[in-house]
């Protein structure tokens, strides 16, 4: 399966949360459970032992209890951006449910997708993003193209002809210093 078919997205923050103060994005938590069935035992235990602590620590989250007969237990979380998350917790024990509740509390409410980048920045570049014109001489814009200078091959090593000419120059210079054609070469 290609990654294009699976939804993906970028890191998003809800309302620049954290830049100013932190706001818990969990708005409401609804606990749906059965008062008698075995699958809801964990959730019932959670309500008895851990729920009060949770509500005291998170006064900004409204917790609703929905005892519903013969229905499987679940946690329903509603977030400030309007999204809902449901977690079925049948036969889970209360510690696991604690972890799930904490998981829901710390979520931003954004959809869980594959993150293309695990970071986001509004200032990705200090010197400015690259353009095809970065680090190019602006004289290129006023140069008439085709230009012989820009087209000519630039060798890394001197060619045989070049070497010969340089050698000739050196010999001529030596001859000029010595002051006369001792060797008699017509260089």
């Amino acid at each position: 399966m290609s990654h294009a078919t699976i939804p993906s997205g970028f890191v998003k923050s809800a309302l620049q949360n954290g830049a100013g103060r932190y706001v818990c994005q969990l708005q409401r938590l609804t606990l749906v459970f059965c008062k008698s069935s075995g699958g809801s035992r964990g959730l019932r235990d959670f309500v008895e032992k851990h729920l009060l602590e949770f509500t005291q620590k998170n006064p900004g989250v409204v917790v609703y209890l929905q005892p519903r007969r013969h229905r499987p237990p679940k946690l329903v979380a509603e977030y400030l951006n309007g999204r809902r998350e449901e977690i079925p917790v049948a036969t889970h024990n209360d510690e696991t449910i604690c972890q799930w509740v904490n998981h829901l509390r710390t979520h931003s409410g954004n959809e869980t997708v594959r993150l293309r980048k695990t970071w986001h920045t509004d200032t990705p570049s200090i010197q400015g993003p690259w353009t095809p014109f970065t680090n190019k001489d602006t004289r290129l814009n006023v140069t008439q193209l085709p230009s012989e200078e820009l087209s000519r091959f630039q060798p890394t090593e001197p060619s045989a002809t070049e070497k010969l000419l340089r050698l000739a120059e050196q010999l001529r210079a030596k001859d000029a210093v010595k002051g006369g054609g001792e060797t008699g070469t017509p260089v």
Partner: protein
Amino acid sequence: MAQHRVQQWATFARMWWLYDARWQCPFQSAPVIIRHLQGLHKPIYHPLSDVGDHVVVINTEHIAMEGDLWRNWRHFHHTGYPGGFSATRVWKVHEADPTKVLHKQIYSTVKGNLLRRPIMARLHLYPDDNVPEDILKNITGQIRQLREVPKRLDEYTQDERDAFPRLFEWPADYVPNPGKKTVKS
């Protein structure tokens, strides 16, 4: 908002490059041209994002082949019908269409994936200097040649010829290649 838009426009702007193929080898030039056509010369390159540039190649009729390749290198073609296979020597192909040699070389060097067609569409080949006005106006940069253009003897000035170092002088009455005796004595 507009700032981001124009910034993106600048980053993904398509450049138009010029390449003079006079005395250049097609086998050597093709990878360099393809690098610019694909966009591999850009730091923003990604195979899935279409960041290739245009390349205008001039003087393709003056392209140079190594050694005997004008005679020995063949271009194959099959019409699709039975018995439709043909192999043509490159000098003959070049006579008929001076851009074909470089075109075929670039086409076969580019990877045969779906990106090949748009890449070839961005390649503009001209046999000589005559490039349409509107294409010339688009051009932004020039790709450097890969081989030195050799200088013929008649392209040297008399001064340069005189100043060229000599090891010795031929005698005045020296006749190079006198040839065979034609008259039997």
